[in-house]
């Protein structure tokens, strides 16, 4: 692993730890608090500090050290995490996040950031000072008493760890200098002694200047636990022999160490004596003892090492526990290793390739049918089945649960509520709902805008809520669920709702509509997406500038989704963002109109009916379907399709006034509409290819796709078509009414 890659891992892991810190802080803030959580958050801070230390990111280490200190005290129940402290810890977490995003060099130039760090440390001081003071007094007292009692000395000695480092030869080559580990160890306590072993140096001719030959024996006086010290070497564990002996290790273990190390025993013994791990006497004694026991044990059956260790109880409990923990961790790591991080570009590439596969599969399908060979057709059918499965599997790779995104809002809601002096509870539903990763990323901003708006304008202040007889705690709900092949993200609040009158006034004010315009509620609500539109009477730093909601709409539409707003005055409002499940490959329904191919996304289709069999309401594109009035659109009219010459002649032959005969009924949200076409060709897997920017303005078409025979099919944008159909219908109704009125007026004169 090169240094860059290792550093990258650090950044990714730091980010994960920061996220976990945030979620734990949120939980604690909500009143749940137990030892596990405190341990979790401490461990996160601790790991960040540790890894940062290895990379020499001192700015992170120094700040995180203090935070870790406070958390450690909380963990030991010396202090409790009250509201004030949690607030500061949130800020500290944010500060750590910004620290992580800066390199040490950049940090030197960031005076503002440095200032924030300093003020946060000052803010933390009520919780740390005591600690430092007490520690200082502790140290003072030891200094005072040390010369007096040998016992104290013995205790001090006990804190001395022994670390034996035989790092991987490639350590230097990989950009990791033992110097940095040692410097980090120094930050954990005091390095009493380091012995550099130069025994492994080869002759000059065989020397590789990028190999590490030095070995180290280190005596470290520290209160840190085994895991902390072990973590120092996290990045070099592979291929390295690292032995860490805790302070109260029995002499025998040192002897074992000596036995296992490659250097000569006598020399190692001397070194350990120099490190203060052993005294000359004890070394000699145990070496003789060991020789004896070895002779004895040769007569006995060979025991397992573990048994020997337990029998002799040479392994302190701490070490056993640490080892057990370590095993648990590695089990966790094993389950983690079932996940791999993949570059998203590679995934996109895979999806593209599968798109091509699908197209080719269709070509083969077509050829097979043409050939009429039944066994070939059957084989191709099987092939199609597998293609579909591969497609689904590949697409599912891109799916991530929306929960992660929702989780981030907890913090936003908490902070904003505090800022606004409101009491707001965030409820999350359907966090497991999976969504295309791309969409999750692009949704973060729109969601933030809507959530902020809901908190700022929607939910009332505590006093207003009390006056309205509502519970003081406002509710904000984020929900995600599936609906007819789409994902719905609903953001609802139980606030005041959207003030229709004010929206109207404002719209007239801004000249978006005129005083006579008649609008449905939905249309009225959609006015808030107009650029520069804001009904807020005062502008806060959160929202009210009218920038944002138009961006929200644009972002959602870019994802081929739409937004539905419903609002009830005094009851609250709901924003529903409706999104397609995936953008890359969809199940489509292949239809034809005047030899032009269209694909209707299958998820939107309810049924196909025969248009002629239904009563067409005269002069209006509407049919009566089992009592419901369904507007429909004729493809040939909308897209001005002109029949080809061949068709003309056919038509002459048929000598009938031909029109579209099939009607596909589609649904989107609560609306239904029909699409009239000539021919239904059936289900088809559709690879969505976006249309070029020239076609952006084209309403009703969402993309294109290549058919198996090489023809191009247009993918219909059903929501837009429905809008069009309903719009046409209302327009027609109005014109009909007015023309009736006109004719009524005109009739007497005639």
């Amino acid at each position: 692993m090169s240094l860059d890659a290792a550093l990258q891992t650090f950044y990714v892991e730091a980010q994960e730890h920061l996220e976990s810190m945030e979620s734990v802080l949120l939980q604690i803030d909500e009143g749940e608090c137990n030892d596990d959580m405190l341990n979790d958050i401490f461990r996160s801070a601790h790991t960040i500090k540790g890894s940062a230390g290895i990379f020499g990111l001192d700015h992170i280490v120094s700040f995180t050290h203090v935070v870790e200190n406070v958390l450690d005290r909380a963990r030991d129940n010396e202090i409790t995490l009250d509201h004030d402290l949690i607030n500061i810890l949130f800020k500290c977490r944010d500060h750590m996040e910004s620290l992580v995003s800066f390199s040490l060099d950049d940090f030197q130039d960031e005076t503002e950031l440095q200032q924030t760090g300093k003020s946060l440390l000052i803010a933390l001081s009520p919780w740390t000072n005591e600690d430092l003071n007490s520690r200082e007094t502790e140290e003072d007292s030891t200094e005072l008493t040390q010369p007096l009692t040998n016992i104290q000395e013995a205790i001090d000695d006990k804190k001395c760890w022994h670390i034996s480092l035989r790092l991987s030869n490639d350590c230097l080559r990989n950009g990791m200098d033992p110097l940095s580990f040692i410097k980090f160890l120094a930050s954990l306590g005091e390095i009493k002694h380091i012995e550099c072993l130069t025994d492994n140096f080869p002759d000059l001719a065989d020397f590789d200047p990028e190999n590490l030959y030095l070995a180290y024996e280190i005596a470290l006086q520290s209160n840190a636990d085994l895991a902390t010290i072990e973590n120092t070497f996290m990045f070099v564990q592979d291929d390295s022999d690292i032995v860490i002996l805790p302070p109260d290790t029995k002499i025998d273990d040192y002897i074992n160490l000596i036995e296992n190390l490659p250097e000569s025993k006598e020399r190692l013994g001397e070194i350990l004596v120099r490190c203060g791990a052993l005294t000359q006497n004890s070394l000699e004694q145990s070496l003789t003892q060991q020789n004896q026991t070895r002779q004895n044990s040769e007569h006995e059956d060979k025991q397992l090492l573990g048994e020997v260790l337990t029998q002799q109880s040479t392994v302190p409990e701490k070490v056993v526990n640490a080892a057990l923990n370590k095993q648990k961790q590695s089990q966790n790591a094993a389950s983690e290793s079932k996940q791999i991080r993949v570059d998203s570009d590679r995934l996109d590439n895979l999806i593209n390739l599968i798109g091509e596969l699908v197209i080719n599969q269709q070509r083969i399908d077509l050829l097979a049918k043409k050939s009429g060979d039944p066994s070939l057709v059957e084989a191709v059918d099987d092939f199609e089945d597998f293609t579909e499965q591969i497609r689904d599997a590949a697409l599912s790779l891109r799916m991530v649960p929306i929960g992660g995104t929702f989780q981030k809002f907890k913090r936003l809601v908490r902070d904003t509520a505090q800022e606004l002096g409101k009491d707001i509870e965030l409820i999350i539903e359907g966090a497991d709902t999976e969504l295309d990763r791309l969409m999750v990323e692009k949704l973060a901003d729109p969601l933030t805008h809507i959530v902020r708006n809901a908190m700022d304008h929607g939910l009332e202040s505590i006093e207003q809520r009390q006056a309205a007889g509502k519970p003081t705690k406002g509710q904000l709900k984020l929900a995600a669920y599936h609906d007819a092949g789409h994902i719905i993200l609903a953001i609802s609040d139980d606030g005041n709702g959207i003030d229709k009158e004010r929206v109207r006034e404002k719209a007239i004010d801004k000249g978006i509509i005129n005083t006579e315009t008649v609008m449905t509620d939905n249309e009225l609500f959609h006015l808030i997406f107009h650029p520069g539109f804001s009904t807020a009477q005062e502008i806060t730093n959160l929202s009210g500038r009218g920038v944002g909601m138009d961006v929200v709409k644009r972002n959602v539409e870019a994802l081929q989704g739409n937004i539905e707003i419903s609002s009830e005055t005094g009851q609250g409002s709901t924003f529903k963002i409706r999104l397609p499940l995936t953008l890359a490959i969809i199940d489509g329904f292949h239809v034809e109109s005047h030899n032009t191919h269209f694909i209707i996304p299958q998820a939107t289709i309810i049924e196909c009916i025969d248009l002629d069999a239904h009563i067409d309401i005269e002069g209006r594109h509407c049919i009566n379907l089992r009592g419901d009035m369904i507007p429909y659109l004729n493809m040939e009219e909308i897209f001005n399709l002109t029949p080809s010459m061949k068709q003309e002649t056919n038509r002459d032959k048929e000598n009938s006034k031909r029109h579209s005969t099939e009607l596909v009924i589609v649904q989107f949200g609560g609306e239904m509409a029909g699409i009239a076409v000539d021919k239904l060709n059936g289900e088809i897997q559709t690879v969505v290819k976006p249309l070029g920017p020239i076609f952006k303005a084209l309403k009703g078409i969402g993309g294109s796709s290549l058919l198996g025979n090489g023809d191009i099919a247009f993918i219909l944008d059903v929501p837009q078509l429905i809008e069009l159909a309903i719009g046409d219908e209302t327009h027609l109704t109005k014109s009909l009414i007015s023309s009736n009125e006109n004719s009524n007026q005109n009739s007497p004169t005639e």
Partner: protein
Amino acid sequence: MAKIKITQKRNNSTEITFSGELTIFCAMEIYQEHLQKIKLKPKVIIKLSSVSEIDTAGMQILLILFKEITKQSGEYEVSSINDVIRDYVKLFNLESCFSPSIKNIEPQL
């Protein structure tokens, strides 16, 4: 980048002066260009006062040089060092290598 100046003196000694950054980034170059074909007279004087930075790879270069000199049964003397080197040597208790004359005296605990 590190610079090495090797001067063969008339009084049967070699003077080696290291300057600049003595780190992993130039360790290979120093080894290939200078150390591999180094000719040493029985007495070697090593000057380190202009070294601006040293890391473990750099230290290994010095240590292998010391070893080579000793192997060729020569003597060496580190005639000048600076704080950069001093700090490193002190941290890793390498004093004995840098002052070979007191080689046999155990460093104090």
